[in-house]
């Protein structure tokens, strides 16, 4: 169980709704066509404000990571060492997601490794996406 449960807001609710249906959804700018995450009031490429929410495949690669050895919160004391990272979406590597990497020994984690999303139920009706290694 995650130590902190996300609190959706009016900008991020569609993302968390997608997770509940086990899909990763992101904002796509109607002006320039670029996708983005995290959800924002405007496009960081062109400033456009109108969006469509589009589904991604849930495949990506590891842009960077760290192995956390010190628990910065008491609820994490039994979890260290654990792997967290930033995942670049297969469809557009500039669309990136912070996450915990599951099913991966800290000794085996590598930048560039291929990943796939998996979803886990949390409290408050939240479904949280995690990522794990994927066979090439």
């Amino acid at each position, binding site marked *: 169980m*995650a*130590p*902190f*449960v*996300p*609190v*959706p*807001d009016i900008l*991020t609710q569609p993302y968390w709704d997608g997770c509940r249906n086990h899909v990763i959804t992101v904002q796509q700018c109607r002006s320039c066509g670029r996708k*983005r*995450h*995290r959800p*924002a009031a405007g496009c*960081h490429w062109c400033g456009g404000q109108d969006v469509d929410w589009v589904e991604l495949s849930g495949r990506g690669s590891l*842009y*960077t*990571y*760290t*192995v*956390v*050895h*010190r628990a*910065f*919160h*008491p*609820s*994490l004391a039994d*979890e260290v060492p*654990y792997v*967290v*990272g*930033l995942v670049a979406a297969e469809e557009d590597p*500039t*669309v*990136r*997601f*912070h*996450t*915990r990497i599951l099913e991966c020994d*800290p000794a085996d984690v*590598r*930048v*560039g490794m291929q990943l796939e999303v998996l979803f886990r139920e*949390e409290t408050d009706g939240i479904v*949280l996406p*995690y990522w794990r290694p994927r066979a090439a």
Partner: protein
Amino acid sequence: MLRDKCAIVGLGYTPFSSKSGVTTEMLAVEACQNAMADAGLKPSDVDGLLTYHMGDSAPVQVVASSLGIRELRWYNEIAQGGPGNCAVILEAAMAVMAGLAETVICYRAMNGRSGQRAGETGAAGKAAGEMQFLMPYGIIGVPVWYSMWARHHMATYGTTREHYGHVAIAQRQWAMNNERSFNRDPLTMDEYLATPLIADPLSRLDCCREIDGGCAIIVTSAERARNLRQPPVYIRGGAYGMGPGGGRNYEKWEDYSQLFSHYVGPRVWQSAGLGPGDMNFAQIYDAYSFVVVHQLEDFGFCAKGEGGPLVASGVTAPGGSLPLNTGGGMLNEGYLNGLNVVAEAVTQLRGQAGVRQVADAEVGLVSGFGGPQGSAMVLRK
């Protein structure tokens, strides 16, 4: 055009400690009074006051009152951390050049150790706003975020833990000659590599220590500076700003191996009319060892990816050709959000750095880091 129109004329500190036992207002007032005494100024000579903070310090209006400034003509607070260190100096210069104030005290005061600590989180439970995408995954604690930037550079350019270790080791050599440093013993590579990791690749030796303390720096016009007690240190040029991904919006950062200095670097050199080869030293914001390496590349002291080998060559240590963080930096003095980084540059340019004085120091670079956002300036004597 900033070019030498304003100067730094006063510098004041409080003691740096783990537990000040006083309020941030008291720290601010003590630092400002010490800076006025250093400059030979009275409260009635000061008409501007400026600070930066992250909700962890006394309001500037309260500090003005306690300093006995009867009429403040200009004041402000900048709501940010590291980038505020050069930003306050540049903003003060702007206020002086615009005629809004004549003499401005810039300060930073914080109980960063005994009071509100960086990246502090409360009880487990909810994560709202930007944190809803970070904290549920255990991405908690500033070193956890930042370690991922170092890892990206390592994977991209072959930078190693030893490279980052050379930053910590060289700065420890400088720190041995700084009375404010809490680390006065030499550091070896074996000790560096044997220290347990906090978040790979960072150990505590890569992270600055949080402290309680205050620092104040006074800016006035170049004309007025010439008649004051201390040798003037002129603000040659400066720049601040950011690329995508500022404000912890890190998913949108263009390239994790670059910092703010990728954007600010070319502009600070243009502003100063000088380049990296002209610098007699650099005081580079060092909340973490690795950000020094990445900034050196972005500022053009070497090619991108060559920062690790550059520091490993020893040029940044005492006696080297690029004296860097000559008081030992925040890795050894502690985290005063970088105003102490500015202060060390002023001390060197006045020729008051004692045994750690850089010979013939006439001009140097100072930076303030906050990820994709930051600041930099060139100071000269």
